[in-house]
């Protein structure tokens, strides 16, 4: 069904007015227009079935135009893994998996716990704080810098630069002073590593600075491309996960109490948060061979906007309460928040560990905290990320603090 959705009846990612509060429009799309065309080049896929179909199909779809909803693709000096296709993608993902293998990420748990503890000790014992700006904001960046191998003394400066770069994406970033400074700094780190080949580290810098037999040598700008891609992918999204999950648990206090009473519900709450408030709202694929998505034929050169959020709210898959956050939702893990298939989020295991430990630390230290009065869900700006703008809470510590 090639339904033109130029009307305001259905969700249109090209309409800036649809971005702040998209859920009703997406529901209308799932009912009336599961796959629709919104511009000469762009189609939108809105249900679990069609989004899952495209994620699983690398024969008819390419990643090269990912994140760009217009006809023009972002030009990269080197292609990041998120925009690469096999066989180059296969080799690059295998290289990154040396640092991001789920088993290896799980071994980072003590380091994540130490970083969370540092962020927790910076919170006051009582009073009003914004758990997004004063807590969730710091954790994913620091965990990622540890995994990359950036010296701890530089974390503050790197985060300042990286936050400017992340906020600029998808606009070009390479002319920003912060980009130039960060590139120079990371270049120095790569050179330091290469000048001391006898001293090896188990981190991303080491992995990309030294090619094992059968692997490709990388130039400094190439290393920079892949490290920046990790920074962009890992920080805002994981911040969003922690903030969104905290907001949903606290706004419906029974759910916070349920997790306090039964900690085995916490991983389920994290999955349910990923589903109901998916940090990355969409991905984009480019059609490379004639294909039919749902009932809609699409020709090569066109793009498909994979509406991850809408798929994760799909009533046919999740039931009539699909837009409700429920810590006890059966099998919330089946969501598509991290994508699926060969491009599935390589940092997903780490994001899950971070969210679990960050929220568990608050459950332990501030079980009686409450959301500040009159707090509402307001989505942050930008089309890609779904995050509550702030999580203002009133802290009251445990009695033994």
């Amino acid at each position, binding site marked *: 069904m090639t339904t033109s959705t130029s009307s305001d009846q259905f969700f249109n990612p090209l309409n800036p007015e649809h971005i702040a509060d998209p859920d009703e429009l997406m529901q209308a799309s799932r009912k009336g227009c599961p796959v629709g065309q919104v511009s000469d080049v762009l189609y939108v896929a809105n249900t679990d079935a069609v989004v899952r179909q495209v994620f699983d199909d690398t024969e008819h779809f390419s990643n090269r135009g990912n994140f760009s909803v217009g006809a023009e693709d972002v030009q990269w000096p080197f292609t990041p893994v998120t925009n690469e296709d096999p066989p180059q993608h296969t080799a690059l993902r295998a290289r990154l998996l040396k640092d991001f*293998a*789920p*088993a290896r990420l799980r071994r980072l748990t003590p380091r994540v716990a130490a970083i969370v503890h540092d962020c927790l000790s910076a919170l006051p014992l009582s009073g009003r704080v914004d758990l997004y700006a004063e807590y969730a904001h710091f954790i994913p960046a620091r965990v990622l810098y540890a995994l990359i191998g950036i010296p701890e003394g530089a974390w503050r400066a790197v985060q300042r630069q990286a936050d400017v770069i992340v906020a600029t994406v998808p606009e070009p970033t390479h002319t920003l002073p912060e980009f130039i400074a960060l590139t120079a700094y990371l270049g120095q780190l790569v050179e330091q590593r290469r000048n001391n080949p006898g001293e090896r580290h188990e981190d991303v810098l080491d992995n990309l600075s030294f090619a094992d037999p059968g692997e490709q040598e990388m130039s400094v700008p190439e290393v920079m491309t892949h490290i920046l891609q990790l920074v962009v992918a890992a920080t805002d999204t994981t911040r969003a996960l922690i903030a969104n999950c905290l907001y949903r648990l606290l706004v419906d206090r029974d759910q916070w109490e349920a997790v306090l009473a039964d900690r085995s519900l916490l991983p389920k709450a994290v999955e349910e948060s990923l589903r109901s408030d998916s940090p990355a709202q969409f991905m984009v694929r480019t059609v490379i061979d004639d294909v039919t998505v749902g009932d809609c034929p699409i020709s090569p050169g066109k793009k498909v906007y994979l509406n991850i959020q809408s798929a994760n709210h799909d009533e046919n898959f999740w039931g009539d309460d699909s837009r409700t956050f429920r810590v006890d939702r059966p*099998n919330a893990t*089946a969501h598509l928040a991290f994508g699926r298939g*060969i491009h599935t*989020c390589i940092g*997903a295991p780490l994001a899950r560990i971070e969210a679990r430990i960050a929220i568990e630390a608050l459950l332990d230290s501030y079980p009686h905290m409450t959301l500040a009065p009159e707090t509402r869900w307001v989505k942050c700006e930008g089309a890609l990320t779904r995050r509550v703008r702030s999580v203002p809470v009133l802290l009251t510590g445990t009695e033994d603090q």
Partner: protein
Amino acid sequence: MRIEVDLNRCEGHGMCEVVAPEFFALDDEGKLTVLTDDVTPSDEAHVRDAVLACPVAALKLSNNR
């Protein structure tokens, strides 16, 4: 029904083990073992949940016995 695993796709995310630990186990290195690949009709929905949870789409339920 039977569980089919494509080990070339498996990266050791372990979501199958989270959903259905009676059927899937990962070792410390993330290597997957299917504990029993024969799925009775009463377990089918449960195993299907694990198949849906696989991030890299490495699992399938098939009718081949």
